[in-house]
Every structure is written in structure tokens, then in C-alpha cells.
């Protein structure tokens, strides 16, 4: 297997982009990534997208996006692992370059979620659960994570305030990110007084509905060295895993097993351990998710994720800053693009170009992207050379 580098990244501000189409937001980000990389061609494209079919009635976006990027006839494939589609696209691109089959691969993610109404968006996202045995009976994604939260509170004494602290921290970080959809700061009181969605989770515990795209260029480290002499970022570790599709089938309802397994794969490949990680971008689709993820990644002890966020260790300047970008919560969550945007934040941090939210001296960063209630997880570790 060859060493692989991330040589370019591109992303524009996310939000309700009603005046732009899916193809336009993707191509804008892809062109920025190509320009950042300084490459004059790509050999292949892998695109993460959860549900262009349900959100904009368009499938076959591999062809669409290669065509509109002016890159046809290169091979272009869409991959889907629900909200982890972007992470999976990155991993497929990594494998393609590492294998030697391609030298330069564009990996991207895109989701256009606001062309449909709220009900339809809820339905489309709901298809990431077991439609016949969860969705049929009336559960929603906030509902599934609410049940995870309720159980975590019951077993480990996690408090309602600790959940709120995740949202407060991520909005604080997002306020320093010019690309964030919701860059406003919020307080614990505001979270606790916001509208209830699925008890005990309130609207400010939930990530938003977002239009957005993100892209990165992967190439062999050998090629990267010919193009750039500094700021090289190596993909040190990659892992992906699955768990039961239905939340109720998990023996332990608060353990994100797919994340733990994917993380162990990535740690082993990279020769790193949790204490080697300088910052992490994780899948805070709901506040409880970040708490469970910090445990599954080995940053916090089992059951102590709530106390971990309360300690301040996950803030910028803390022991292990989590979601310096603002996370899904503040930056937005165009589901297929999220996994690539996490990579982009880590790349900016490792190149020390993250501005006000820079994690000082960051050399090793981790990304964790998750689908459904944890049925899929993808973890990557990037390292500055």
C-alpha cells in the first residue's frame, strides 16, 4: 500500500442555498479543492451523498457531477452510508490511491436538503433507520438519540446541563468559523429553554438541515512531494465499521460500537493511541452523540463523556479540542458533505491556517463520521509531515 496525502481542500459557506442547484454547490467546492491542490487533472471521483433521490429527485450524480466539473470521462462513483457517506467517500478514495489504481482522486460530499419541506426532509433522513421496524412505528432520529440520551443519563448520571454544554461549546467554536451556517453563540439556559423535540432533547441539541458541499484531493505522497514542498498532510489511518441497523438491537444502548471498532482500525494503522490526537472533528448530530463518541474514541472513560465535556477538556485550548470547526451543530449538516468537511477542518488545523479557532501546535487530527443511530462509522487520522 502506498502512502496517501491530502493535497487540496475546498468548501464554501453552508446554509439554505435556494438559489443554487446541487450540481453548482458541488462544482464550486470541487474547483476550490483542485485550485488548492495545484493539480491539472484528476483520475477519478468518489462522491458521498445520502439521498439526492429523495431530496432533489436526482440519482446518478456520479455522471452529473463529473460532467458539470468538466472532468468526464473520468470514472465517478457515488457512495452511501447515510450521514457517513462523506467519510466513506474519503475512505474509498484513499483505498483507490493507496492501491496504485489511481494517482489523483477527487473525493467530495454533497447534500441539497432545503429544496423539500421539513416533513419530507424528516422522512428522507428517517430512511437511515430500520424503516420497517423503527420508522413504521413512529420513531424519528431525534427520538432515537433521545433514547440514547435517556439511557446514558440513567446509567451514568449524565446531566441535562452536560448535554447543553456540547452545543454551547460547538457554537462558541462555530462563531469563529466564517463558513458556519449558524455562527451565533448560545448559552446553557438558551439550550434548556429551547423547544422540546424528543424528550430530553430540545431543538438546540439538534444539528440543522443544510445545503452544502465539500471536496478534497487525494494523491500519492510521492506525487504530492512533486507538487508541494510544505504543508503536506498524510492519511495515517483509516477505519470503517458497522453495527445493528436498529438502535434497539444493541446490547449496550449507549455504546457506539461501530465507532469504537473503526477507531481501533485507524489507530492501529496509524500507530497512534487516543492520547496522541491533538484535535478531533466528530459527528455531533445531537449533543448526546458527541458525549458517546468521545467515549467510543477512547478520549473519555466509558460513561464519563458528560463529565468530560463539563471539564472543559474538549474546548479549544483544552486537552483534546473536539469540533473546533463548530461541528455539525453550528457549521451545519448537509449529510453527505459532513464527512469531507471534517477532513477539511483537520487539514486547515494541521496547516495552521484555522485563524481564530486554531488549535496551537496541532500535528495529528482525527475525524469520526457516523450514519444512522451508529449503524455505520468511519474514522480517519491525518498527520502533518
Amino acid at each position: 500500500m502506498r502512502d496517501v496525502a491530502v493535497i487540496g481542500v475546498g468548501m464554501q459557506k453552508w446554509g439554505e442555498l435556494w438559489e443554487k442547484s446541487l450540481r453548482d454547490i458541488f462544482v464550486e467546492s470541487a474547483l476550490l479543492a483542485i485550485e488548492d491542490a495545484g493539480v491539472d487533472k484528476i483520475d477519478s471521483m468518489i462522491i458521498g451523498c445520502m439521498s439526492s433521490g429523495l431530496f432533489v429527485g436526482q440519482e446518478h450524480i456520479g455522471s452529473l457531477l463529473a460532467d458539470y466539473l468538466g472532468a468526464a470521462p473520468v470514472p465517478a462513483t457515488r457512495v452511501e452510508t447515510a450521514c457517513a457517506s462523506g467519510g466513506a467517500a474519503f475512505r474509498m478514495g484513499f483505498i483507490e490511491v493507496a492501491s496504485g489504481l489511481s494517482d489523483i482522486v477527487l473525493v467530495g460530499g454533497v447534500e441539497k436538503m432545503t429544496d423539500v419541506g421539513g416533513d419530507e426532509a424528516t422522512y428522507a433522513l428517517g430512511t437511515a433507520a430500520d424503516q420497517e421496524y423503527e420508522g413504521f412505528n413512529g420513531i424519528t432520529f431525534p427520538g432515537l438519540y433521545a433514547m440514547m440520551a435517556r439511557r446514558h443519563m440513567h446509567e451514568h448520571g449524565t446531566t441535562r446541563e452536560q448535554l447543553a454544554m456540547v452545543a454551547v461549546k460547538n457554537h462558541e467554536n462555530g462563531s469563529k468559523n466564517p463558513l458556519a451556517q449558524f455562527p451565533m453563540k448560545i448559552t446553557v439556559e438558551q439550550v434548556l429553554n429551547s423547544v422540546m423535540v424528543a424528550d430530553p432533547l430540545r431543538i438546540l441539541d439538534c444539528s440543522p438541515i443544510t445545503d452544502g458541499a465539500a471536496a478534497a484531493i487525494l494523491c500519492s505522497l510521492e506525487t504530492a512531494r512533486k507538487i508541494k514542498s510544505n504543508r503536506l498532510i498524510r492519511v495515517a489511518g483509516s477505519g470503517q465499521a458497522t453495527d445493528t441497523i436498529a438502535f434497539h438491537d444493541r446490547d449496550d444502548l449507549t455504546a457506539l460500537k461501530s465507532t469504537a471498532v473503526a477507531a481501533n482500525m485507524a489507530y492501529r494503522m496509524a500507530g497512534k493511541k487516543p492520547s496522541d490526537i491533538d484535535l478531533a472533528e466528530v459527528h455531533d448530530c445531537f449533543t448526546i452523540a458527541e458525549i458517546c463518541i468521545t467515549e467510543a474514541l477512547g478520549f473519555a472513560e466509558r460513561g464519563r463523556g458528560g463529565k468530560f465535556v463539563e471539564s472543559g477538556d474538549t474546548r479549544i485550548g483544552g486537552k483534546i479540542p473536539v469540533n473546533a470547526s463548530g461541528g455539525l451543530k453550528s457549521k451545519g449538516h448537509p449529510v453527505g458533505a459532513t464527512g469531507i468537511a471534517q477532513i477539511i477542518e483537520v487539514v486547515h488545523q494541521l496547516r495552521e491556517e484555522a485563524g481564530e479557532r486554531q488549535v496551537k501546535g496541532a500535528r495529528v487530527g482525527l475525524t469520526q463520521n457516523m450514519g444512522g443511530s451508529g449503524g455505520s462509522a468511519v474514522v480517519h487520522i491525518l498527520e502533518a509531515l
Partner: protein
Amino acid sequence: MIAPRIRRGMPQRYRYEAGKCKKCGKVFFPPRLICSACQSREFETIRLNRLGKVLTYTIIRVPPSQFKDEAPYAMGVVELEGGGRITAQIVDCDFDDVNIGMPVKIEFRRIQAEGESGVIGYGYKCVPA
């Protein structure tokens, strides 16, 4: 939920049919072709025990469109006596009565109607036991 899907799910939703692995005893609802615990392919068809207890719960206040008229409603993960777990609505009680460890039993109820004039989907809900 489209009509063929509702029809296909009848043995599970109407009769609570589950598969019990003949080798390791794990109960699967719905039945499967291969056991995820021991890889055995031999199952005995059983019926879920209708009694169980709530492992965790929530109150859905922002429902999917098919459940608009019913919100808010309680839902939980229920572990049934003798094995098998379900995600189901918990009805016929106040929200304050729903808690972890609450004994419940399965009842046959109307779950949802497809579209404006569509097929009515029946299945299981839980009530206090």
C-alpha cells in the same frame, strides 16, 4: 409504507413471529436467515412474549408526517420476557408514568395510514402491564 410491505410484515406485526436460533438461543425479531451471534442457519419460529419492560423512552413532539395527528406520543425500546426487543409507542398512560423499568405488554393497534386514502397499517403498541 407501501401495501406489499405491510402485507409482508403481517406475520411479525399481527402475530409477533420471531426466530429463535436453535444453536445459541438468541431471539431475532423479525426472523433472520442467519444468526448474527453464532452464524447458525437453523431457527425455530416462536411468538414474542407479550410482556416486557421499558429500557429507554422518549416523547416524540415533532413527528414524521404520517403521525402528525398523534403527536405528542411516547415511544420506547422494550425488552420482552424470553428475548427480543422492539421500538414501539407506549400508550394508554400519562407521559409521567413512562419510565425506565416500567412493565408493559404488547397490544394490537392501528399504527398509521398510508397517504390520504391509503392502506391502514396495523401492528403493535405497548400499554402498561
